[in-house]
Structures are given as structure tokens and as C-alpha cells.
């Protein structure tokens, strides 16, 4: 039912179709083919990645659109029908059952969005390791989906929730995690503590190199689980019957 409610909302379908296509089309028309060798923060210092400006921008914008979409949908899942969900619990539904339903719906959304954006990105720019790149998109979806759940369980008002998401996605995924910006950034330690750091690193490593991304994958999962745990605790505390 939760998934059914989500896909019946026109705005959800419109965002899913428009945002990734729009982001990637902008990249196609605004970036050049010049090669940009850069170092990736989570790889050894002597490792340089050679990729075109267009290529790295496609990967980076795929990560950004995936993070934004999943985060928004997670917020929608947990916040939109809060009062009716509460009624369901009063009628006998257990808050944990409801939490599990929301989580299962979110996991499905994360995987579908990752596959869709992965394939779409590959249509614009051939990704060397597509399946591993999709795994990176799943991770950004997991971290930002859990962040969306946390915002939705904390904030009651829809507009404020959306603002919190847009703000962090914009600063973190949309700006600071850009590897070209990061390479020259001051105080890189701050950027490393932001939620999109590990999933972004995973997506770039897996998409264009043969190096292992296991440390980034583990740290992404850890980051996601911390957000998820807090969001579930707050949700349970607010929804339980007294």
C-alpha cells in the first residue's frame, strides 16, 4: 500500500522522470571533453585518475540526482501521511510493522532509482563498470534516504522538511563532494565528515577505476545505519500508543 500511494502521486513520477534527465542534459551541453587528471581523496596519493570533464561531471551529477530524489521520496514516505499512519496504529497496527513497511518501500525505491539513473548515465557517457557504479548510487540512496527519514521523523511541516533536504543535498552532494572542487578545497576534513563523502567516493572509484572501494562502501553503510537508527527511534517514540 505504501508503495502504491507513492507511485500514484504525479509529482513523484514527474520528479523521477525530469530530474535525472535534466541534470544529465545540462552536463551534456555545458561540459567539455578536455582531460582532467585528479587525485581521489580515498585512494593513495600517487594515484591519478584521468577522465574528461564531461565524464566526471556525468558521474557526479548522477550521484547528486540520486541523492536528492531518494531523500525527497523518503521524506514523503515518512512525513506525508503521518496523521493517518497514527490512526492505523491506534486501530491496532504496530509501529514496528509500519516502520518495516516504510523501509521495504524505501529499499525498493533506492534500488530502482539507482538502476534507472545508472542506465541513463550510461546512455550519455559509457561507464566502465556499470554494475559497480549502480552499487555506488544505491549507497548514496541509502545514506540520503536515511537522512530523508530522519528529517521527516523530526520535522512535522512539509516545506521545512524539503528545505532541510535541498539545503544539505545542495551543499554536500551538489558542491563539496565534486572531486574537482574537493582536490583544491581547504579543510578537507570537514568534507570527509559529510554524509555524501563515502558514497560519492564509492561511485567514482567503482565507475572509472579498478581499485577496491570496500572502505568507502563500509563507511557509507555505517553512515546510513546511524541516520536510519535515529530516524526509526524518533518515529517509534512519536507513533507509539500511550
Amino acid at each position: 500500500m505504501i508503495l502504491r500511494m507513492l507511485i500514484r502521486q504525479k509529482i513523484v513520477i514527474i520528479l523521477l522522470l525530469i530530474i535525472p534527465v535534466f541534470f544529465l542534459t545540462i552536463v551534456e551541453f555545458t561540459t567539455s571533453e578536455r582531460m582532467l587528471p585528479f587525485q581521489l581523496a580515498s585512494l593513495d596519493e600517487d594515484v591519478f585518475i584521468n577522465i574528461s570533464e564531461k565524464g566526471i561531471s556525468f558521474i557526479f551529477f548522477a550521484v547528486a540526482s540520486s541523492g536528492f530524489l531518494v531523500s525527497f521520496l523518503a521524506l514523503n514516505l515518512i512525513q506525508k501521511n503521518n496523521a493517518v499512519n497514527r490512526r492505523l496504529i491506534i486501530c491496532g497496527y504496530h509501529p514496528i510493522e509500519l516502520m518495516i513497511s516504510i523501509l521495504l518501500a524505501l529499499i525498493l525505491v533506492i534500488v530502482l532509482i539507482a538502476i534507472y539513473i545508472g542506465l541513463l548515465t550510461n546512455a550519455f557517457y559509457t561507464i566502465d563498470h556499470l554494475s559497480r557504479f549502480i552499487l555506488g548510487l544505491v549507497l548514496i540512496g541509502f545514506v540520503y534516504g536515511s537522512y530523508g527519514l530522519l528529517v521527516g521523523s523530526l520535522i512535522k511541516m512539509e516545506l521545512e522538511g524539503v528545505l532541510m533536504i535541498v539545503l544539505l543535498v545542495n551543499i554536500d552532494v551538489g558542491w563539496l563532494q565534486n572531486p574537482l572542487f574537493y582536490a583544491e578545497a581547504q579543510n578537507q576534513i570537514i568534507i570527509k565528515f559529510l554524509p555524501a563523502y563515502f558514497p560519492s567516493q564509492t561511485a567514482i572509484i567503482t565507475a572509472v577505476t579498478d581499485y577496491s572501494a570496500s572502505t568507502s562502501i563500509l563507511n557509507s553503510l555505517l553512515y546510513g545505519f546511524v541516520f536510519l537508527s535515529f530516524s526509526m527511534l524518533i518515529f517509534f517514540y512519536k507513533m507509539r500508543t500511550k
Partner: protein
Amino acid sequence: MILNTEHIAKSFGRNKVLKNISFQLKAGSITGIVGENGSGKSVLMDIIVGARSADRGIINRNGKIGYCPQRALLFPHLTVQEHFIYFAIAYGIGRDQLKRRSEELLLHFNYRKYKQEKIINLSGGTQQKLNLSIALLHEPDLLILDEPYNGFDWDTYQMFWNYTNHLKKQGCAILIVTHLLSEKERLDRIYKLENGILI
């Protein structure tokens, strides 16, 4: 007793909304609680159904509770039939009972033609019918109605009272909370909520 409340109190900051509320509901009775807007009626209902905790006091509920909130709390993108299915799972009622009860309620409140319609496409009155039907779906022993006839037309209003009397005869305790009570003779007992206490 179906419901027994003793010395219920609730404050929001310095505002003491409920000071000392005690009352009982017995099977086969209709009780009304009236009060001005902002007198704390909905807070009291929330405490009785378990949506909110009281600062003090005891509540004993015996039997199944059906709660019809003041505002139609429904999922905008689900159909009427999907609501029955979803809430039947919450109540833990089987497929046969769900089918029998949903058909009965759809026919009684005369909105069967909207069975496959999404809530977002329904009028306020039809939404209110479904809001009430959900509270009645599992044949409750205690029915709590918060301003139940908001948005009802005259026919539906009559249907509502017919159904309420039918439930009363079956032994259901009914609590109606409203700011405006026009048909006092239909109720067995009426309390007035004023300054945080029942008069």
C-alpha cells in the same frame, strides 16, 4: 463498564486543559460531551484512544474501540476499498468479515458507487462517511465519535443516527463529542466540559 476514567489531567505548559476528569461508560448507552471550541474535547478524546498520554489519572478500556476523528484521516491516494483492506489488517479482522462489513457500511451510508474511487476525488461528505465507516468496520464495543456529522447532508445525518441506535441496541457504548448538540433526547447522558472539568 466499557470505559472508566478517573482523575484525568493534562496541561500544555501553564495551560491546564483538563483538570480532573472522571466518568464511566456502560454497554448500550449513548453519552455526549459538549464544550466550546478549545475546551479540550479533542485532547480528552486523544487520551481516551491512546493517541496522547495524560499527566495524571487512570483509564480502563474494555473491548474493541472504534475511533472516528474530527477530521477525516484518510490516505489521499488510496481508494475506498483499499482503506477497508488496510484498516482490516490493522484491526486483525479476516477476509470474510471484511467483505461483509465493508459491503454493509457502503450500502448503509449509500456510497457504494465510490468503492474504487481515490479519496482525493471524493467530496468532503463522502470522505466523512468513510471516516466513520472505518471506526465501525470491526464492530467495536466502544465507539468514540469526535464531531462525527461534520459535512453530512440531512439524509446521511439520519442514517448516522439510525446506525447509532442500532449499535446501542447491540450493546455498544457510544461517546459523542461535539461543540453543538441539537438532539439531546437521543442521548442517555450529557456532560459539559468547562474549565477542564466535566459538569
